[in-house]
């Protein structure tokens, strides 16, 4: 079972490596969206600093969602998804493996780039960058796991990406609130621990429940 999971993660990473442009565009999207806000609201530091956590988090949300469509679509198109459903490992394991690979490709780079965006917004004290990175580190896997449900439900549909957004964004709201909230707490001098622990709880819950939901959704979609 673990061998299958390792095989899937390795495979997806290898595919991402050979299709670097796809991965890079999603990250570029993150940077561009975050850079649009100052152009829209004005560049005064006292305006940008308070909105920075929220803006960075929303940009991370949108970028994560953009790459979600790719999670199952390519495998579905060339028939490899069917083979995974007929594989030796339970579908839940396959789903977790794909989710992990997706996070490593699309989520973890966001964690690395976000502090740089924070610099753009002059986020504040050095501790804040750490809190931002940690909140994204805890939150982006949740985004991948919850988003996978939406990706599985909308597999192969015409409306595709936009429908996925409509389905998944309401479910993202708690992650956004606690993620951005943790940085804002730290910015006002309070402890972000509460928010971060809640994010951790969401992560645990997502790991526990979403594989079941994604597997059910995949079976419904492939029926």
């Amino acid at each position, binding site marked *: 079972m673990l061998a299958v999971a390792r095989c899937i993660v390795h495979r997806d990473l290898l595919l991402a490596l050979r299709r670097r442009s796809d991965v890079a565009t999603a990250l570029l999207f993150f940077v561009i969206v975050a850079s649009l806000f100052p152009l829209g609201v004005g560049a005064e530091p006292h305006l940008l600093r308070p909105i920075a956590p929220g803006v960075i988090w929303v940009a991370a949300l949108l970028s994560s969602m953009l790459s979600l469509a790719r999670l199952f679509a390519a495998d579905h198109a060339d028939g490899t998804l069917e083979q995974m459903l007929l594989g030796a490992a339970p579908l839940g394991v396959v789903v977790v493996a794909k989710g992990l690979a997706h996070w490593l490709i699309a989520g973890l780079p966001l964690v690395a780039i976000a502090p740089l965006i924070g610099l753009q917004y002059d986020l504040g004290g050095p501790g804040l960058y750490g809190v931002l990175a940690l909140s994204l580190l805890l939150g982006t896997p949740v985004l991948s796991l919850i988003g996978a*449900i939406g990706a599985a*439900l*909308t597999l192969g*549909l*015409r*409306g595709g990406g936009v*429908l996925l957004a*409509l*389905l998944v*964004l*309401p*479910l993202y*709201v*708690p992650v956004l*609130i*606690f993620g951005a*909230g943790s940085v*804002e707490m730290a910015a006002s001098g309070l402890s972000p621990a509460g928010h971060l622990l809640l994010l951790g709880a*969401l992560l645990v819950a997502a790991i526990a*429940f979403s594989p079941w*939901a994604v597997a*059910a*959704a995949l079976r*419904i*979609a492939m*029926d």
Partner: protein
Amino acid sequence: MNTTARWFWFSSPQTFFPLAGTIARWCALGAVPLAAAGLYVGLLVAPTDAQQGEVYRIIFIHVPAAWMSMLIYLVMAGWAAVGLAFNTRLSFMMAQALAPTGALFTFIALWTGALWGRPTWGAYWVWDARLTSELILLFLYLGFMALHASIDDVRRADRASALLAIVGAVNVPIIYYSVKWWNTLHQGASVSLTKAPSMATTMLTGMLLMALAFWLYSIAAALVRVRCIIRERE
């Protein structure tokens, strides 16, 4: 016929069709006097509020509508779960029939909330926790209907939207509490639009009457819609 057989007999769309019509008729007839009574109590009998004057009377529509929007979502998710567990066509049809009514009540709750907010707090939309949660609930309803509409195969559409409804239902408490947390963080001690500190009994009676009226209306509307769906599919 024993009880179990009787329940499953009605799970066939064909046999349910006439029953739905009868229940719908009675519920619609019942909803009208209840609504009249509720409005009478709300608009005429209940006392004027000390702070807000006559404007607060809109809660007699706003609060019951909000209650119904949440109740209908739960019932919808319940039918979705029954459908996925027992693979009965009618359960999925019931979930589909309930969605537009639920969305309607969510919309009414949002509108009345905005209309209440303007004279009371000066703005049509304040990011009150309850209203924001209602907004997200509206997105959940719309997502449910959109997903079903975009899948051609009816069976796949039914089951996919059913799964979505269940996932949404599980998330609704999490979303509600996170929004509430967010609201207290950002607005401090601002008053909630739906808080009525000491509700006179008449106010409560009025709201309950309206809630019952809305409930009967929802049942009637959903059953009429399910009849349309049955006719369309079978």
